[in-house]
């Protein structure tokens, strides 16, 4: 038998079903013929019938014959050389590609960069787009149901009946009607307003997904001008029309499902909790910005000065000061919001 140099691998041979080790040499030839030789036996086969384990760092490789015999060796480089010599044309297998990445710092760094970009694109673009699509395919009747359940829950947990005078309520109702008439496109929503008292929630106004706007007594008391009410209503209307409420719920639960599916067995849920909160607050701030922009657009069209929003906002801040860092907040920073509303009065003046 003639052998070319470098065409053999030293290792240990185990027959099927018995743990006795035999010092062995594996010879290989360009045509794929393999001979495994021990003191007691010679096995001839073709490489195509062997099952060669993938390389993982420098752990021992196992090469199994179809009969269940095992040739095992530490000489990983020699096994790789054998494969590439017999199959020079063959593209890299997944297993060899994985080993390549795992053994090259540059490849790992590239993978980290790709992952960061992919995660960013997913969180900022793909995932919100899917959720938006889902939110807009929910029929309004379902939104009504969600809103009914929500208000039942809120009434049970936080709210008592309003303590405002019937006269004040009538005034606001009338103003609300006037406002609703100015909404350019209601997109099949029916808007309504509800008054509630809550010492726990304080001055606040928010919209339910079906177009019901809830306003607390404390908030009504802060309002000194009809147009102040209108800016707030415009902001809440944007939340309704863009379905921010259901999108918020879907984003929150969807993110949790995705995170658990991916990280479930990598890190514990407590470790993904904070990043999830930060990502979710990011979406929430986007919604608030979008609602602010809608309100600004509304003010411009209806010739309402930005001062009204700012005045109300400043009164609100005095009542309920909130100094939360932007990253942890569900709303954009105060200065950012105020400067946006200031612009209402600037830009139209410049235009003739």
């Amino acid at each position, binding site marked *: 038998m003639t052998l070319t140099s470098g065409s053999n691998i*030293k*290792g*240990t041979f*185990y*027959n*099927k*079903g*018995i*743990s*006795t*080790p035999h*010092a062995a040499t594996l010879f290989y030839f360009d045509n794929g013929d393999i001979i495994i030789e021990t003191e007691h036996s010679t096995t001839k086969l073709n490489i195509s019938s062997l099952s060669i*384990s*993938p390389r*993982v*760092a*420098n*752990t*021992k490789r*196992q090469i199994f014959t179809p009969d*269940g*015999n*095992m040739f*095992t*060796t*530490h000489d990983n480089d020699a096994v790789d050389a054998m494969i590439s010599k017999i199959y020079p044309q063959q593209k890299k297998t997944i297993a060899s590609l*994985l080993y390549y*990445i*795992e*053994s090259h710092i540059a490849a*790992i760094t590239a*993978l*980290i960069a*790709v*992952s960061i970009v*992919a*995660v960013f694109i997913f969180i900022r673009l793909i995932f919100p787009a899917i959720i938006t699509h889902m939110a807009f395919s929910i029929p309004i009747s379902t939104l009504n149901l969600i809103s009914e359940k929500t208000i039942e829950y809120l009434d049970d947990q936080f709210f008592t009946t309003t303590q405002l005078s019937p006269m004040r309520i009538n005034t606001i109702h009338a103003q609300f009607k006037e406002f609703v008439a100015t909404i350019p496109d209601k997109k099949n929503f029916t808007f309504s307003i509800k008054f509630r008292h809550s010492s726990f929630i304080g001055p606040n106004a928010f919209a339910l997904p079906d177009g019901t706007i809830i306003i607390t007594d404390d908030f009504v008391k802060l309002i000194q001008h009809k147009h102040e009410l209108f800016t707030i209503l415009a902001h809440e209307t944007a939340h309704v029309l863009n379905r921010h409420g259901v999108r918020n719920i879907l984003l929150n639960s969807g993110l949790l499902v*995705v995170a658990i*599916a*991916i*990280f*479930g*067995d*990598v*890190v514990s849920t407590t*470790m993904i909790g904070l990043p999830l909160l930060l990502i979710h607050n990011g979406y929430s701030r986007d919604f608030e910005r979008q609602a602010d922009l809608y309100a600004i657009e509304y003010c411009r069209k209806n010739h309402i000065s930005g001062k009204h929003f700012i005045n109300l906002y400043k009164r609100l801040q005095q009542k309920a000061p909130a100094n939360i860092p932007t990253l942890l907040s569900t709303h954009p920073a105060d200065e950012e919001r105020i400067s946006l509303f200031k612009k209402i009065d600037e830009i139209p003046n410049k235009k003739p």
Partner: protein
Amino acid sequence: MESFEQTNTANKIISFHFTGKASEYFKIWIVNGLLTVLTLGIYSAWAKVRTNRYMYGNIYLDNEPFAYTAMPANILKGRLLALGFFIVYSLSGQYSHTLYIILTVSLLPIIPWVIVNSLRFRGKYTLYRNIPFIFKGDYLDGFKYFILIYIWVPLTLGVIIPYIYYKQKQYIINNFFFGTLPIQYKGKASTFYIAFIAATMITLLSAGLVLGIAAAFGSSGLFYVLKKYLENITSVDVSTIATIVGIYGLLIISLIIGSAFYKIFILNNVISSIYCGQSQLKCSMDYIKYTYIFLTNIVAILLSLGLATPWARIRYNKYFYSSISIALKDSLDEITSMDEKDIKSFAEELGGFLDLDIGF
């Protein structure tokens, strides 16, 4: 050359050792994590196989490592099956009350099946010197020790719990074979009771010590601070919060110390009661050293935001495997595989369709 000697290993005590390196495992670990994220979790099956290949391939006994030979596709199938069940299960809660109840009840027979199947799968693809481990545990026994036995928990006010753990260990270990050699567990239930009681006492004592020291240092100040904290959150300054967090942290540490004792006591005693054929295993981890490794590992993982996890695992494995030895009565060179027919008959006992070649 292979480090290879033809020695008669009978009547010798030999130790396991673990040769993994943090630098190698870190790369495998981080690539696993990144690819799992990029493939939306699908890669996790490959990640598991590569991790196990690396870990098993670095556990040496008598100059030969263990080997993990499972195929990722089989694990992926198992995970997709589990995911499918989970999705149907959670959706059924909203659409069909009856289906939800049926699925909830069906979890009872499914859980032991998953356990038995996982043990079979893991054993089958764990080789040492080309000899696989065979799990021949009966499904009905699995149902008995992982489901039925819990009926006794309320009836005994929980006193039976350590006994349940004992029976489960006994069921798992006694049903394993290494080739034709039966693996036997000759431990006692009392081990679990001692571990349980001692760990509780250690936790309570160290927690008492922590609170005692805190009270002595801060004297009445601590309680004043706590009272103030409870009365009005905004009027408490940073140092107060730090004190409270500090005490809370020390209490968690005393809980860790207690649970470390439980874990090490169980591991030492259970492993030392295992016989593979005639050969007895021995595990002799040191309580202080183990607790030290355990605590510093947690600190390193927290401070590195998780990046030290591979280093911590390798460090723990090195200590764990170097603490285990086996007093050989059978020669490691003369172990034979179990007959194919016998293996098949165990599978048939499980009932044909129940014996799926999938892992989780």
